């Protein structure tokens, strides 16, 4: 009756989610595939959001640069710190590699965000964004990125993962 780990053969109780021996996932939970949008509405993501109170980015050189993304549709800022590279996506079941920033609660699925959609990399003094081969693509200020190629982003740029928009905020 016991559950046997496919990876290492260790016996686990029924109901176990991960193997306590080798850390492999014990459950079969093939997740939902990212939905592709027919006739994708480019217009929605091209509108740039204008802010009055964006603190101007200080010129390069300042070491302690803080980076965050702001989701205008949710009025929510997510600070990115402690690492130099962050992956964005949505967590769903059956996933081996989880994104650093899970956008599931911001309607990621409905907006066509892939499970591993894009990454942001801080390479002081500049910041790159890379589309990780997502289903619905990544746009900076409405311009679609070539997948798997790093693109520069600036303070105040509007980035769209599928239809989910956020604004890149940097402060020195």
């Amino acid at each position, binding site marked *: *009756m016991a559950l046997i780990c496919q990876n290492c053969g260790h016996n686990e109780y029924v109901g176990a989610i991960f193997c306590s021996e080798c850390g492999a996932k014990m*459950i079969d939970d093939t997740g939902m595939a990212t939905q592709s949008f027919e006739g994708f509405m480019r217009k929605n993501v091209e509108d740039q959001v204008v802010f009055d109170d964006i603190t101007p980015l200080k010129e390069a050189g300042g070491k302690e640069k803080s980076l965050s993304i702001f989701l205008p549709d949710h009025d929510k800022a997510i600070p990115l*710190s*402690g690492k130099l590279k962050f992956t964005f996506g949505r967590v769903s079941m059956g996933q081996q590699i989880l994104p650093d920033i899970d956008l599931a609660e911001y309607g990621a699925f409905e907006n066509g965000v892939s499970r591993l959609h894009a990454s942001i990399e801080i390479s002081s003094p500049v910041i790159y964004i890379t589309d990780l081969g997502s289903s619905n693509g990544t746009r900076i200020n409405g311009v679609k990125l070539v997948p798997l190629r790093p693109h520069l982003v600036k303070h105040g740029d509007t980035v769209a993962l599928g239809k989910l928009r956020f604004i890149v905020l940097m402060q020195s």
Partner: protein
Amino acid sequence: MTRFMDNFYARLGVPRDATPEEIREAYRESARKFHPDTRDKNTGTELFLGIQQAYEVLAQPEKRAAYSKTLPPETSLDDVEVEISLSRSRLLSTDEPQLLYVLMEIKTPNGVPIRTEPPPLNIGLVIDRSTSMTGPRMDVVKAAARQLLRQLRPEDFLSIVAFSDRAEIVFPASRGSDYHRMDAKVSMIRTGGGTEMYYGLEAGISEIKRYMSPSYINQVILITDGHTYGDEAKCLELAEIARMDGITISGMGIGDEWNDVFLDRLTAKTGGNSVYISQSKDIKRFLEQKFSGISKIYAENVRLVYDLQTNAALRYAFRLKPDPSRIDSDGSISLGNVQFNEEIRVLLEILINDTEEIQDELEFLVGKLVMEIPTRVVPTVRKNLKIKCGVAVDVAPEPPPSKIVQAMSKLTLYRMQELAREDIEKGDIKQATRRLQNLATNLLAQGQAVLANTVLQEATLLEKGDDMSEEGAKQIKYGTRGLLLPPGRETLSWH
């Protein structure tokens, strides 16, 4: 104190519809806590008499009914929001043991305005001043303490205790009115001597008790860089008493030599946690983080008092948020504090035996959440809790909720290092080595190359017949624990 003394129910901290048992229990608890012998003479006696008076009325049904009629109707407000998720909706009907995961989220209810002013703090800083703290460690601790002094508001209490093989009260619990004198006292702390934590903790706790109130945030912050000598059992007993009094102990371990297993147990007993500070310069940041967390507390000292069905047993309990920490349990678990901006998230692993005789549904846990909400007229809040799960002969496989899977994917890694260290204790080096290698593989798959590398280095040490390095063991423990923190809050700084 006037808010607390609102009415007889408030004095005992029970709801209007409390059962006679609850009233008796609450009375015993408060009487012990507020007995004049244990407290500051003036406020203590007055408080205690008030509690006495309330109990005399509420303990007698007729007097209680008559008194209750004189009270204005109770404004009902949702105290906390509790959300329970189970790893599956149905258990298998079987005579074999099976696992069930319970994710419990305790939040500030919607509509509670975010307070701009936190409740008064009652903080005791307990500082290790043993010889090994000499130099930059003590300098930074002092600088951080002085900065905290400057941030105190007139209503906050702070006490500072320094200990080596004995304790000295640097300054007793007092309001931050005489800043310059306090500052001078802090700068006069000298290092020297061994580490006997018991004396420091005892002094720190009794300073807090002088002005303790459920309307305050009562916390001990312990800063140490060493092992305590021969008094671990006594310290744990003390933590147990602190827990019953509603005092949280948090620990900060500096450097590589302190006993993380002990400090974790000590702090977890009271709902606190321990953090690892590898470099002196991080002390200040951690203390600031700690204080900013404390001042966002909505409900403090949340504990789960529970009974499990005879066929169910709690195998493991872990707080995922706000401060990740394994939690001890013996019929009651200290869960820590609910912050305005961050809920408590606890994951329970429950082993359920023999379900063959059970029809339809198993109510495996019955209990209550007890906590203090300092801003409430009646700070002590109790909320009943029942958790049940369906039982069926034929159960179709269902994926667990993604938040449980996600939490478990990280917690499994923490658990692997914990098990590896248990293997080492037992002398099974081979098993420990294999576990660490498995852990490294998983860390790599999750993109944690630096941590994976540290794990592999330690596995190699074990393979060669050496011990794990103290530094490596701590980096692995606090590193895997840090994976549970939201991005940007990782506590370790790698060097």
